[in-house]
Each structure stands twice: as C-alpha cells, then as structure tokens.
C-alpha cells in the first residue's frame, strides 16, 4: 500500500510540473539597405529590425549554407576556435568577451594570454573533439570554428540550447581584403560595429597605397609557397587570398594557374622539378633551416632554401592571429622581401628570414 502511495505522489508531482516555454522570438524583417560587404565572398550581413541576419555562404558554390539572427541587444559570450577571429577581437579591444579559445599555444595576444592564466578564458582544444558539456557550462552563446571538416560536433544539440555555432570561412576567401572584412562580423558581435567598419576602411586604404607602389615594378621574381606535411606538399591554390597577396606584392607565384581557394597537393618530385631555380620560398611554417630539414630533407635542393637571402618564415602565432586582419602589413612585408630595391621605413612585421 505504501509503495502505491509513493508511486501516486511521484506521478502527481510530475504532472504538476509546468514546462517552461521559450518566449516567442521576434521574426527578423530585413531592411532594404545596400549590402554591407565589399570584398568577402563567404558571408553576407543584412540589416533587420532586430539587428542583423548573418548568411554563411558555401565557399564551393556560393549558396547560403546557414543563416543566423544576430540581435543587437544581446551580450555575446564568445568561444572562438579561429585564430583569425581572436586577432580581430583583439584589434577591437574586446578580449574580455572571449571566454573560450582553441589551444593556448596558438594565442599571441598578451591580454588573452593573461585571461587564460586567470582562467577567465578557457582552452577548449581541437574542434573535432571538443567537450559539449564544457561549452554548455561556460555559458557561451556563440561558438566560432574554422569549418575545416563537415560539421561541428553536436551542432544541433547546441542550437537547441540557444548556442549559435558559426563556421568562419575566411581562409577560403580569394582576396586578402575579403579575409580582413570578417572583422565587420566581429564588430557586430562585440557591439563595435562602427569601429570595425572604420578599421576595415583604413586597412583598404593602406592596402591600396602599397599596391600602387608595386605598379612601377618591372621584374617579378618567382616564388613558391607552403610546405611539406608527410609526403605531401601543400601550396595555396591559385585563386586563394595568399596567391592574390603574392601577385599584389609583385611576385610570380609558380602555382598561380591552379584552380580553387583550397590548398593544392604536390609530391616532392613535382616541387623539385618546378622549383629547383625558384627565387623565393614563402611560409615554410618552420622558423629554422635545421627544423625544416628535419621534416623535409629534400628542401636543401631548392634554390630558395639554399640561397640564404631568399627564404622566409612567418612568426607562427602572431601570423595566424593577426595577419588576416592586417593584410596591408603582410603585403608590405612581401613587397619588402620580393623587392628590396623599394625602400620602406618600417622593419618586416610578420616575416623573418629562415636561418
């Protein structure tokens, strides 16, 4: 009898519980305003009555892949697994909105590093095996990821919990200014829309000024880019933003005729055949010759590796974090590297010689 009573009480309690319903969302009504994006081809921002509608476009076909409603009255707490976006957040001085990052050793900004030390910002690791519960516990309401794979793990579950998971396809842009333009999205998320727009305008202005300098160049040195991973050499595609940067810097990129923005794969035989006499090698990803030879001993046959004055390497985390938002500085560095006859007052900002 007592068991029946307990059962009755449990059932009665269950039925007496009220389900909390989500407040009905306002429908976003788009305004008839001109598009806000000039260079980027992988996202669109459309002003609506509640803020902005963000459309992420598929880099392969340009079709709308995902749409998000970004409300202007929302205080966003961000987890960003994209080094590019971390750099843009730093430029807008909104590091305190960043409560999560990918891996600590990809971080360059000192304030984000301080926040990591104070455990205000948490490392979430690689996007392929990120902890769902850790994301939920962090109270983040937006997650940016690189979109290297097909889908973010548990994306649908996170969406049900009101956490927007947004792929950042800046790395598939075909113009460096298109890559930098993603700062406009960061501006909207962090409530610094006008600052982001002003910053981007200044970048465009400076990029165009440096580009004008290279108009007078008559000789275009040949260049190779990328590096070996396993038995495969990954080089930027001919339509990628980096190929555009090399062209704008007055260099003749060996693989400029290849199609697509994604990396191209080559065997070492092909690289040697095509590049035995190439003048420059950009972005070998390791900063010293000895480390480069450790992972790719055949590199010593490349003229650009052997000839001390022609081989450069990026300063890892600084480059990953800042270069997307500062394409004018990447361009300036590359012009300095390819054309030492053009004098600049500034030192190289991102690049250093591989020694």
């Amino acid at each position, binding site marked *: 009898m007592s068991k029946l009573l307990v059962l009755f009480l449990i059932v009665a309690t269950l039925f007496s519980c009220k389900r909390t319903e989500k407040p009905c969302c306002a429908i976003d009504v788009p305004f008839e305003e001109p598009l806000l994006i000039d260079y980027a081809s992988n996202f669109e921002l459309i002003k609506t009555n509640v803020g902005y509608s963000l459309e992420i476009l598929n880099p392969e076909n340009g079709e709308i892949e995902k749409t998000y409603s970004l409300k202007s009255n929302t205080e966003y707490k961000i987890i960003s697994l994209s080094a590019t976006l971390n750099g843009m957040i730093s430029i807008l001085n909104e590091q305190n909105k960043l409560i999560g990052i990918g891996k600590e050793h990809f971080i360059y900004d000192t304030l984000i590093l301080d926040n990591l030390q104070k455990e205000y910002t948490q490392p979430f690791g690689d996007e392929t095996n990120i902890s769902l519960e850790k994301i939920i516990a962090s109270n983040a309401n937006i997650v940016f990821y690189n979109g290297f794979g097909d889908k973010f793990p548990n994306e649908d579950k996170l969406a049900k919990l009101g956490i927007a998971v947004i792929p950042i396809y800046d790395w598939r842009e075909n113009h460096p200014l298109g890559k930098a333009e993603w700062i406009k999205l960061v501006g909207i998320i962090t409530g610094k829309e006008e600052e982001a727009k002003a910053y981007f305008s200044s970048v465009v202005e400076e990029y165009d000024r440096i580009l004008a300098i290279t108009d007078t160049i008559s000789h275009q040195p040949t260049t190779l880019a990328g590096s070996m991973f396993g038995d*495969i050499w990954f080089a930027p595609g001919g339509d990628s933003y980096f190929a555009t940067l090399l062209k704008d810097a007055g260099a003749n990129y060996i693989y400029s005729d290849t199609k697509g923005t994604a990396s191209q794969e080559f065997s*070492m035989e092909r690289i040697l055949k095509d590049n035995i006499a190439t003048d420059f090698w950009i972005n070998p990803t390791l900063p010293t010759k000895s480390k480069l030879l450790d992972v790719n001993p055949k590199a010593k046959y490349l003229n650009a590796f052997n000839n001390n004055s022609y081989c450069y390497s990026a300063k890892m985390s600084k480059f990953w974090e800042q270069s997307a938002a500062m394409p004018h500085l990447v361009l300036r560095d590359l012009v300095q590297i390819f054309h030492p006859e053009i004098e600049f007052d500034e030192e190289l900002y991102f690049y250093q010689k591989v020694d």
Partner: protein
Amino acid sequence: MGITKKNSTILIALLICIPVFALIHLSVGQIDISFQEIWRALTNYDEHFVNEIIVSEIRIPRLSMALLAGASLSVVGLLMQTLFNNPLAGPYVLGINSGSSLFVALSIMTGVPFFASDFGIIANALVGAFLFGLIILFFSRLVRTQVALLLIGLMLGAFISAFVSFLQSASDAQELKVFTLWALGSLQKVESAQLPIIILVSFIGMAGAFLIIKPLNILVLGENEAKLLGVNIKRVRLIIISITAILTGIITAFCGPIAFVGLAVPNLVRILFKTQQHFILISASLLMGALFILICDIVIQLLEPHFLLPINVLTSIIGAPMVILFILKRLK
C-alpha cells in the same frame, strides 16, 4: 637442406621480380624520367640536372627503403610467429612498433635536442622496440593461449597510443608537427647519406636471423622438445627479441610505423611454400616482403596524380583483409 623444386622455382621467380619491379619503381612518378636519365643518375650523377637529382635523391632512397622496410618487417614477423608459435604474431600486432613509437614520441617531445636528433630518434626507436619485445616475452610466459597473447599485444598498443595522444596534447606546436609527420609513415624521408647506416644495421639484423636457422627449425616442434634437443631456449628468445628490436627499430625510426607487413607476408609465405625450413621461410619472407612494399609504393606513385596516399594506409588496406582471410582459413 631439401628445397623442393616448386619452392626453388618460387624463390627464383621472386629474385627475378625484384629487379624488374625495382626498375619500374624507379621509372614511375609524377615526373617523366627516361631510362637513359636513370642510368646516368646511377652511373654518372650530375647535380646540375633536376631529373638526376630526383632519381638520385628521391627515387633511389625511396626504392632502397621500400626494399629494406618490406624485407626487415617480414623477417621480424616470421621470427615472432616462430618464437610465440603463433601465426598471428607480428611487430605491429604485438605492440613492438608501438613501443618504438612511444620512445620516439618521448624523444621528440622532451625538447632535449640530442633526443630529437637523428641518432637520438634511432636509439630511442631501438630501445623502445627492445623493451616492448621483452614485455611481450614476459607476458607470453604467463598466458597459455595464442589469443590471450594477441589481446595483450593489442592492449599494449592501445595503452601506448593513448599515452602518445596525451603527450601530443601537452607538446608545443612544432614538436607536435615533427611527431605527427613521423607517425604518418613515409619511405621518402630518408636521405641518400643516411642509407649506408640503415643498410648496415638491416643487414646485421637479417644476417642474425640466418644464423639462428637451426634453433628456429627446432623451436617449431615446441619449447619442451627444443629443450630436450639441447636448444638454449632463453638465449634463442633473447636473440630473436634483439633481432626484432634492431630491424623494427631501424625501420620505424626512419619510416614511421608501417602496419601489417610483418603479419601478412610471413603467412603468405607459409601458404605458398608449405615448409617449416627457416632458411626457405626467411629467404622467402625477405624477398616477398621487399616485393610487397615495392608494389605498394608503385601503386602509390601511380595514384599520385589523383591523390597522395601514405604507405601505412595502403599496407593496412591490403594487409588487414589478408589477415582476416588467413584467420577464416584457419577456422575452417
């Protein structure tokens, strides 16, 4: 020694196939290189010609490593199968490769320059292989069934790979990159200058295998019978583990882990040759292992214009189904 006519015919066929496929291996690749250029690179190498650099510095070391890796790993597999009296034993399955990997991971990720040097990596790969050889030998004394030993080997492998993953998560970006590249497995990392030491060490290991043919032939009868016939079992075990460590260590150090060759090839040899004579088994494993990796690498090179495939992936694609077939055949 009693080599049947059929077995000697297969051995001669293998001996003929190897130079033929070696020539094919030298001539395929993304760059068209004529036989005259290959001949010039072999006889009168001139660094001023790109095609001769490609032959001399890429294709010849790659060919040499294909032959050495296939031969060494197959001989090791055969020795382990005889030692443990278990046709499913092999350096990969029993965790010997994993032991090497663990010590290489430790050497790369400790940040100590000596350990990360070529010499440090080789030494650590050898020590790792030897240590895990001893561990599996210890377990083989405790368990009675063949399946139990294989399971212990697999568990050791799983434990080590978890530990290596932990090391990877704690290491910095550059160390992680160096280790990840090594772990992918490749026949192309070796330089022509490193070949003499690899050839020397591999030859010592293989010569060692031929020196213990007699006790190996007796060991097939079972350990008790071997003891009765005067074989010093402890010494033979230690010699086999040492040869295993030398051959697995040197190949793993330079090519990364290569799966299934050591398991699949000796089984194929036993099916083809139907003998317990270790002179024939070792010779055939050596030749067939070399030919197996050689053909795998030719396939990889032919596929290169479409997609680039690591050697470890192809040996697993071919080797794993072969092993399943062997198991099914034994169960029948």
